[in-house]
């Protein structure tokens, strides 16, 4: 991914309280961009199997008569995971239990500006 996109997501790691890692992957959970605050990735929320679970979850959630699924927030005892549906991309934010999820969700439109071109490329393929 371009330096501009990397720079933007790296700045989010610094800005958002409690955020540890950001992973951009495709629908199969294959990572395209992986960023973390200290070079280490938490075990929960960063594996391909976990990332791919979102594909099934978002498809099913869109059938609950509440419209298209936008995101899924998971609050584990010591980990918070926010997965955004940017089909065909999945953006996963992994943080501590005190991670500011409201801040992450409010960045929805800003994230669209940066990843828009990649969505077009992947859709074409």
């Amino acid at each position, binding site marked *: 991914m371009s330096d501009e996109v990397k720079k933007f997501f790296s700045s989010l790691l610094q800005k958002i309280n409690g955020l540890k890692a950001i992973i951009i992957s495709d629908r199969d959970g294959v990572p395209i961009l992986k960023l973390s605050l200290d070079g280490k990735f938490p075990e929960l929320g960063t594996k391909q199997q976990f990332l791919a679970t979102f594909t099934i979850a978002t498809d099913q959630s869109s059938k609950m008569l509440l419209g298209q699924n*936008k995101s899924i927030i998971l609050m584990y005892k010591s980990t918070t995971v926010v997965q955004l549906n940017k089909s065909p991309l999945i953006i996963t934010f992994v943080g501590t239990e005190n991670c500011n999820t409201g801040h992450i969700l409010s960045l929805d439109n800003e994230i669209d500006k940066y990843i828009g071109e990649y969505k077009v490329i992947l859709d074409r393929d």
Partner: protein
Amino acid sequence: MLKPKVLTNVLSQANTGGVENTLLLNNDGALLAFSGFHNKDARITSAIASNVWSAYEKHGHNSFREDPLQFLIINCEGGNVIVTQVANLLLCLYANTDNLGILKTKISKLKEKLEIPLQSIQT
């Protein structure tokens, strides 16, 4: 002895401020108790909520440091669904509002209230 009428009354207390349905279901997605406006939606919601919960819960148990799933929030264009575990059952709020904070507070308080009574019927 579980009193279904009382249980439904407790669940209905959460049905304010955009919360349409409050559901109590088992891990297989079968509806145990329900309070709300759309009966048909409730069965679909419970089936999907339990399925998504189980898919993510296993990742928490499989991780090196046991990290149980406490809350699941499904954020859709038209509203939100929040799920948590109470005893060995799942409690679920279906809302057409975007106020995630109030939804989490509501479900936490309901969980507190139901935890002990429901533990007595745990199988």
